[in-house]
């Protein structure tokens, strides 16, 4: 573990999400639905110097492993992120996020005229492009600030 990573305390078990682009840590917390109210111990390092990214954020969540859906959405705002599963202070498994082909039910479409924003029994579905996501229904392309479109529920 490098010098830089020590700025954020070690955790006993849980998940370390590393190589998040600088400034995106709070959006990662939002994706995980963590606002501090549910009691889990969370450490956040922001704008830590990084060889690979220049500066990066790190999020460490105690006693929690992530679902594939959560990892998929994190990959949209942090395509270089690595996920480290920690058990008894040891890294059990470490893997890079992979961008999925599509994400369902996790983003809201910003187009107010989109059918997914009507009272219809339909989940949102976005196709993941190289540098954006695209609504499968109205075809709107979202390139900037994808995290702002994450559903509240």
């Amino acid at each position: 573990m490098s010098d830089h990573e020590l700025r954020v305390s070690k955790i006993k078990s849980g998940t370390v999400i590393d190589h998040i682009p600088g400034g995106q840590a709070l959006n990662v917390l939002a994706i995980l639905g963590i606002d501090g109210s549910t009691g889990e111990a969370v450490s956040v390092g922001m704008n830590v110097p990084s060889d690979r990214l220049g500066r990066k954020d790190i999020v460490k969540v105690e006693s929690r492993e992530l679902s594939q859906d959560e990892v998929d959405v994190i990959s949209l705002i942090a395509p270089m992120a690595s996920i480290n599963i920690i058990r008894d202070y040891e890294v059990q498994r470490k893997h890079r996020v992979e961008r999925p082909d599509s994400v369902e039910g996790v983003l809201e479409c910003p187009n107010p005229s989109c059918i997914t924003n009507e009272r219809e029994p339909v989940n949102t579905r976005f196709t993941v492009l190289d540098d954006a996501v695209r609504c499968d229904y109205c075809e709107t392309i979202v390139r900037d600030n994808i995290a702002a479109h994450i559903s509240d529920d």
Partner: protein
Amino acid sequence: MWTDQLVSAKQLSRADIDAVLDHAAEIDENPAAFADRHTDKLLALLFYEPSTRTRLSFETAMKRLGGDVIDMGSIEASSVKKGETLADTVRVIEGYADGIVLRHPSQGSATMAAEYVDVPLVNAGDGAGQHPTQTLLDLYTIRKNVGFDDLTVGIMGDLKYGRTVHSLANALTQVDASQHFISPDSLKLPRRVRYDLHEAGANVKEHTELDKILPSLDVLYVTRIQRERFPDESEYRAVAGQYQIDAELLEAAKDDLIVMHPLPRVDEISADVDATDFANYFEQAHNGIPVRMALLDMMLDNE
């Protein structure tokens, strides 16, 4: 497969386009031969926004094939007002009719409806999204008058909100047309349409003025610049004048240029163009019948 459900012009390959247009030409030649094709079939017209023109065009096409239509009457009087979802409505109607034609103000509505039903379904316009049957009749008109070979098309007006433009642009990439888009900066093509054109490797240029490009065009496709799109009237007046064509302006065009318009027009094509050989918009509207007959015939047959 598009013969089940035609939601977007993007579904149509060059071969699909040729197949529909060939069949439309066959029907055009001898409509009477198709008068008993679908005497036992019912088509449901679900129009969630008023469009007399498109609705009558589908109704005429179905009746010319010997079939019949049902519709839900005015939106005000229907269960839509009582809060029934589109998803429920199409599932109910699927049990009544052999096919559904859907016009709805929300983008993506036809895509969603297609996920709920198995009967043939045609998107007759979903908000600012797609209008594939308009595209097919546009293509039919172009093929009939100037052909697809070495084709240069200018598309002018409201390119941002015009669904007929979006569908047509997608389809023109299939026939390798050179496409010139002419509009005020504020009404340029939306990002999603540029993305598709780019992905398809389309030959596309954008302009704010018509005059330089006009002499090279085989087709000038004009759409209405909608006053209500502009935050204030003076901004509208500043651009609207630049996008009006008249007979004098067309003197600079090729002799065999055709001027098209999905109609209704307001003042973007002056009445003195009507008397010229350039005017093609009424023929274009009439072409909606054989093209929609061809489409319905193929879709209902496939069932």
